[in-house]
């Protein structure tokens, strides 16, 4: 865990960010995440494991 962990240089970032593969990835993955964020109902809202709260609104 103490191995070298180098940051990317600005040039390396620029190069990656201009590839079609990267643009595709950002487009697709951001849509999936946005959809997940859109879920209106939080299935864990009333629950904490170990603490039971009664509430049923299905």
């Amino acid at each position, binding site marked *: 865990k103490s191995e070298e962990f180098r940051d990317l240089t600005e040039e390396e970032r620029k190069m990656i*960010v201009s590839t079609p593969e990267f643009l595709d990835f950002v487009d697709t993955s951001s849509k999936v995440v946005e959809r997940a964020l859109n879920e209106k109902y939080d299935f864990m809202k009333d629950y904490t494991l170990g603490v039971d709260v009664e509430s049923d609104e299905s």
Partner: protein
Amino acid sequence: MPSEVDDTLKRLSNRKGVKGVVILNGDGQAIRSTLDPELTVKYGRLISSLVQQTRTTISTLDDQNDLTFLRVRTKKHEIMIAPDREYLLIVVQNPAETMQA
């Protein structure tokens, strides 16, 4: 068009409850991040290694199968991880803020 990428990231990070957005390459190095540099490196290292292990777990259970999305729910927030062969999108959100109010 890099600015398109930055628009997408800005849109994501402006969503209610979203605490941070990070994009990593396959080595866990950040290509973009809205977290501070120290936290970005920590997330890069730890989340990419977690995704690695999750991938290995899935393919050990069934070598025809592959990871497509990972959601880690914690006491404080949810970490959503969208991987592909090369890159990793990480979004940290506070579900309470997204859902309530």
